[in-house]
């Protein structure tokens, strides 16, 4: 059999199609990469070079001043400490929000899939509606709620908002993943004498790694990149980096420092990039795992 495969001739048409395919792929890659390349080049030029050169001209020499300034010296609104404090703010919001919403989603999914109760499907359907509620719609009621809870303009408040908004998505992910787990696994554990949380902790969670990774990436990206909730519900000291970036770009004394803007934008995007680089393969694997087993 293998001989036949080796001897198979590729026709001229095949080769042309292949070349065309790669050309299209390269063009697409360039289209997606170009903005980032422009940002990177611009962040490494000095202001003079930006003014005289074109977008794509390479810097004559590398200047890292813009990066340093963006990190710790640029003015965002009234303060001039760069975006570093807000970068930390973002982590303080994102880490607890991601962990809590993922954990809640896992428990919700576990119950909806493996401990079905009367009306659990309806409950799930109702929860799904949460995925389709636009951000803007919940701004006012949420502001009122945060006020009543006494956590308006705080990091805790932002964590709360992101958890509430994220639970619909995380539940959906975990529920779909747990649908492929045979219910007999839970039955066996119940007969073995394990209770609700023991089964969750000892049996279900250890086999949930793929979906945990997917959920964490999804939630991390969503919450890190969020601007609307950040701008609406944060206090002066608790702004996330996305809001600070906006302020930085809009605050100008004298000439516009595009290199600083670009450096700040890249810094703000780095964590999500890092997450994709380190966990991206799990992301794809986890998204398709449930589909195949279905």
């Amino acid at each position, binding site marked *: 059999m293998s001989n036949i495969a080796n001897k198979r001739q590729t026709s001229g048409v095949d080769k042309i199609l292949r070349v065309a395919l790669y050309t299209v792929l390269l063009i697409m890659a360039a289209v997606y990469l170009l903005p980032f390349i422009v940002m990177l080049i611009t962040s490494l030029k000095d202001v003079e070079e930006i003014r005289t050169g074109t977008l794509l001209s390479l810097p004559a020499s590398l200047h890292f001043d813009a990066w340093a300034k963006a990190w710790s010296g640029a003015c965002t609104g009234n303060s001039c400490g760069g975006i570093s404090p807000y970068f930390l703010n973002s982590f303080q919001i994102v880490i607890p929000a991601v962990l809590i919403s993922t954990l809640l989603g896992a428990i919700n999914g576990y119950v909806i899939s493996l401990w079905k109760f009367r009306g659990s499907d309806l409950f799930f359907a109702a929860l799904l509606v949460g995925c389709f509620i636009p951000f803007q719609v919940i701004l006012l009621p949420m502001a009122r709620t945060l006020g009543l809870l006494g956590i308006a303009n705080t990091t805790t408040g932002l964590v709360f908002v992101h958890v509430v908004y994220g639970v619909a998505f995380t539940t959906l992910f975990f529920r779909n993943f747990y649908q492929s787990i*045979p219910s*007999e*696994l839970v*039955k*066996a*554990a*119940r*007969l*073995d*004498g*394990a*209770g609700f949380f*023991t089964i969750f902790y*000892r*049996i279900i969670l*250890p*086999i949930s790694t793929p979906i945990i990774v997917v959920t964490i990436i999804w939630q991390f990206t969503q919450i890190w990149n969020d601007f609307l909730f950040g701008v609406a519900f944060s206090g002066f000291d608790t702004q996330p980096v996305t809001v600070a970036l906006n302020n930085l770009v809009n605050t100008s004394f004298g000439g516009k420092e595009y290199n600083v803007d670009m450096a700040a934008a890249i810094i703000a995007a780095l964590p999500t990039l890092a997450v994709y680089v380190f966990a991206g393969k799990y992301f794809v694997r986890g998204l398709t795992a449930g589909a195949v087993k279905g």
Partner: protein
Amino acid sequence: MASLVIDNVKKRYGSVEVLKGINISIEAGEFLILVGPSGCGKSTLMNSIAGLEDVTEGRILIADNDVTYTSPKDRDIAMVFQSYALYPNMTVEQNISFGLEMRKVPKEEREAEVQRVAEMLQISHLLNRKPGQLSGGQRQRVAMGRALARRPQLYLFDEPLSNLDAKLRVEMRTEIKKLHKKLGTTIVYVTHDQIEAMTLADRIAVMKDGEVQQLGTPQEIYDNPENLFVAGFMGSPAMNFIPAKVIEQNGTPMLELATSATVALPFPKPESLAPHLGKTILLGLRPEMITEPQPHKEGQEFVITTDVEVEVTEPMGADTMILTRVNDAEINCRSNPAYPAEAGSIIKMMFDTSKAVVFDQATGERLDK
């Protein structure tokens, strides 16, 4: 080991009645098999015994204790599932000892118990593997090991062999039988494989539509089926059902059989045929009772030899199944492979009705009880 009593158990989902009043009672150490087509309620009954589903009505007693409303973990039951339901993240050893750990058995005892069970099932060399690294047969053994380790009062097997290939299934079947003989445990075993039921059970409960059709020993069920359904369900190939008219010959009710020739077939209980004179009823005759002419049976009271036309033959090695047509019904006969029978030819076959049964055509009820 404990006795089990299922007392008028009913289960309804909304308006659908899945179990319609089940009454089964088995002694300690008995091997009960529940058989029936899919959807007959046997798995629901199993889950009810385990406590995984609540019953709507009735009582369940294990060792004379009412456990109807006891939670599964307090019923002291172990179950082997069709999918094995091994915990994928745990090694074989952890799988077997999980139930003991949940019951707070000290570590040394757990280890000793795992060793004992592993040796009994010959899986000692697999203890450090994960279920994903095991073959189907090995997983099956581990699932049994998990059940055995707890030494529960009652074992439930939910179609434990149906995911194995044919050869392994036969092997494991024998092994389960040996284990039962050795340990003397009470077992309730669900299957849809009637050979499994025949070979393993002390008693069989044949179920259909949420009702027990018949409860009895394998031989009782095979020889003396309560109704048409039980008769057709047990036995492979299935019992032949021949519509036959009740006629009278020399003052005795007999059954008319039209093959190549028309003959009158005697029946062991002619008095049960008498009320149906002139009507057509169903004659149930197992394939092994229709054979090539056997000299030693010649002249016996309920034996008749007649001509039939062969439609198809199916050699099975030990026997050859001959498909023919009697009273316009397709019937299977079991003959010696050496007996010449070619498709299309007319051959002599011997009908032995000493173990025949008759059913009402409309209701399927047994007429000669």
